């Protein structure tokens, strides 16, 4: 079977896992990595699951590998920070069957809280890293990654980026190659990483890196594309390769690095000898550039002209190297920005409206509800990383004492709470701060596009699964005051928050209402504004609902967006919304 298909990079990655005979997948969702795992779950031959967080996912995948089956786990760049602990020691144990890890960087921060360059993790953990530049390569590199993993006894990271993960390009499909279960033999010197054994494995890791470097010198994953008309050379990787080819065409010879760790030495030296000037075109940090200087190659130009902030593209390259700038037109008009907003009917809206009204300090977290920081709700003080709302609030209250405890809350989603909020809550109970934690339970992992999690009662394949009981869980770690409220009911929700802030012990409020975009959620008919009753006071506008706007000094509701949640109706003192 052979056919050409247009595939997302992530979909092609999943196809590569399937074709390579991968048997078990454990991941945690995170843009732009999520679709790899969603797509691979569609193949019956692959067992795939959502783990509670990236650390669990990676440890599971390592267990699969030691158990003798080809394994995969996927995550976004910040997820690799969570999974860094197992990664750095999995580097020492190596594998039994192949272990491939996807990490998706988000150059330009389309959907992330930082712009870290994950190549640093590969370098620090001494794990090889491959980087494809289109969907076809995603599929091929995954298959190659399994071979490298087994041949060199190492986990292999495949680095994705937003543009590679979320661009579709043409992929040639082939058959799956079934790989049998490998034998498992007890080898404590390889898998028990206590000092005596780990010392031996560290020696192995250093030797392996040298072997991988030799492999990188001649591997087809690194290739020089020599142009006879070349005026200069370019060394590049990932999406930047595509921008380079489009901007420079035959004016440059290109050394495309598909293995970004470890980097070759002789290959680079030979290439750089050919041209007077070499441009290093890499997104984010100047890692290839530093490597060149370290090995004594100094005719390179990199971060002095290409920023380490955001994405590179063909226009930037054409401008910086060729001095070419496109003409374009624009309107002589101040065009309002259109930032992302909470959807019409979003259950988070009512909760944040109450928090804004109460004027409390809000320790925030990662998810759709981070949009609570935006105007007009503007009800968030901090957002750092997953779980930090809960532990950060405890710290804030330890700094500022009892007065602060009655005027501050943490907000965290159901999936994020299971990911790493629960440990912070244990700390609140154990080390006794009178903190108020609000779990925004919308029965799904929302921002990444509706993934199941341990609280939803379904697994990745949509089959029934055990659902964690949040109330019981919070009580079990020592929180005596656990309340549930419906964020569509503003007055009730505000009252519950007031009471828990006043209470002299720690409490959890579960703000429970499924995401309005879930297919099973039944909506009420769209609401209408009575033009006669509306006085144009704009009280409803304070909710920041995208379905409500003002036309001719009266509120109007867009019937295509409104799902009849009714919080604007509760807000209207003139009974104008029906």
């Amino acid at each position, binding site marked *: 079977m052979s056919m*050409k298909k*247009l595939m*997302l990079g992530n979909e092609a990655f999943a196809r590569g896992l399937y074709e390579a005979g991968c048997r078990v997948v454990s991941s945690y969702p995170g*843009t*732009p990595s*999520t679709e790899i795992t969603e797509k691979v779950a569609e193949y019956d031959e692959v067992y795939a699951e959502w783990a509670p967080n990236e650390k669990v996912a990676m440890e599971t995948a390592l267990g699969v590998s030691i158990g003798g089956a080809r394994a995969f786990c996927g995550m976004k760049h910040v997820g690799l920070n969570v999974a860094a602990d197992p990664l750095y020691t999995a580097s020492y144990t190596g594998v039994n069957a192949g272990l491939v890890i996807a990490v998706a960087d988000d150059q330009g921060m*389309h*959907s992330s809280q930082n712009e870290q360059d994950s190549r640093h993790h590969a370098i620090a953990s001494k794990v090889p890293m491959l980087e494809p530049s*289109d969907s076809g390569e995603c599929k091929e590199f995954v298959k190659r990654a399994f071979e490298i993993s087994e041949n060199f006894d190492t986990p292999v990271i495949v680095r994705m980026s937003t*543009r590679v993960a*979320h*661009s*579709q*390009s*043409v992929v040639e499909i082939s058959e799956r190659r079934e790989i049998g279960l490998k034998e498992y033999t007890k080898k404590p010197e390889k898998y028990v990483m206590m000092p005596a054994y780990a010392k031996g494995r560290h020696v192995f890791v250093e030797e392996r890196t040298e072997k991988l470097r030799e492999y990188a010198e001649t591997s087809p994953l690194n290739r020089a594309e020599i142009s006879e008309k070349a005026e200069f050379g370019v060394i590049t990787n990932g*999406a930047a390769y*595509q*921008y380079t*080819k*489009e*901007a420079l065409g035959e004016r440059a010879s290109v050394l495309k690095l598909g293995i970004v760790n470890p980097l070759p030495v002789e290959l680079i030296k030979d290439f750089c000898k050919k041209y007077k000037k070499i441009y290093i075109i890499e997104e984010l940090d100047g890692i290839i550039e530093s490597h060149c200087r370290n090995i004594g190659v100094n005719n390179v130009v990199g971060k002095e002209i290409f920023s380490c902030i955001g994405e590179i*593209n*063909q*226009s930037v390259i054409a401008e910086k190297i060729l001095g070419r700038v*496109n*003409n*374009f*037109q*624009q*309107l002589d*008009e*101040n*065009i*309002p*920005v*259109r*930032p*992302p*907003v*909470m*959807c019409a009917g979003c259950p988070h809206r009512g909760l944040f409206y109450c928090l804004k009204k109460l004027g409390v300090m809000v320790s925030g977290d990662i998810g*759709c509800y*981070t*949009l609570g920081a*935006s*105007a*007009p709700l503007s009800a968030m003080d901090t957002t750092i990383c997953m779980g930090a709302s809960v532990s950060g609030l405890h710290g804030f209250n330890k700094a500022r004492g009892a007065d602060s405890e009655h005027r501050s809350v943490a907000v965290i989603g159901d999936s994020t709470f299971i990911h790493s909020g629960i440990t912070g809550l244990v700390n609140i109970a154990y080390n006794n701060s009178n903190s108020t934690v609000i779990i925004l339970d919308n029965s799904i992992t929302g*921002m*990444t*596009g509706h993934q199941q999690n341990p609280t939803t009662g379904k697994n990745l394949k949509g089959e029934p699964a055990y659902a964690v009981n949040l109330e019981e869980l919070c009580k079990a770690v020592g929180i005596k005051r656990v309340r549930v409220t419906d964020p569509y009911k503003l007055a009730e929700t505000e009252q519950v928050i007031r009471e828990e802030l006043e209470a002299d012990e720690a409490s959890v409020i579960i703000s429970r209402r499924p995401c309005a975009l879930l297919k099973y959620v039944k909506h009420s008919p769209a609401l209408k504004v009575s033009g006669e009753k509306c006085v144009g006071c*704009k009280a409803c*506008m304070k909710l*920041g*609902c*995208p379905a*409500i*706007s*003002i036309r001719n000094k009266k509120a109007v509701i*867009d019937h*295509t967006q409104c799902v009849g949640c009714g919080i604007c109706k509760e807000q209207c003192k003139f009974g104008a919304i029906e």
Partner: protein
Amino acid sequence: MEIKSIMIVGVGGQGSLLASRLLGNVLLAQGYDVKVSEVHGMSQRGGSVVTYVKYGEKVYSPVIEKGEADMIISFELLESARSLPYLKEGGKLITSTQQIDPMPVITGNMEYPENLAEKLSEKAKVIAVDALSLAEQAGSAKASNVVLMGVLASRTDYPEELWQNALKECVPAKFLELNKKAFELGRSV
């Protein structure tokens, strides 16, 4: 051949992903190398959404930069205005006349600019279509995206069969008839 670039712009939730997939499938079936770049994650939540479709003999970069688009298909007027700088000189803009207020307008900090369709016409070749009404006529306001694909189809010469196949491939079976109708209404504009 030279690489051709088509940009699809709109507001998160308006269905730009489906539109770009339809177009990508048609172009692939036509024998081109194709790249389609999408936006997922936070930007999808009611924010400005941009997808790129590029085709030709060999396409490298999946993104479109200022002054590069041969055509822009826009689901919303303000987004048309925002994307104008991406249009190549002599490029074409197909826009829905639908207006959706962004948050700075909802909160009263800014005004939605007036007469955008006319102002855009002074700068570029503009085809303005009431895609929302046509979509509602077809059975769902959500089908504006497919209406605009119909408009695009009538301005390009790819065989009807390819569009029909792409619709079958990309649209869930229970919405196929509705979308076929929306496509036809767009085509006859």
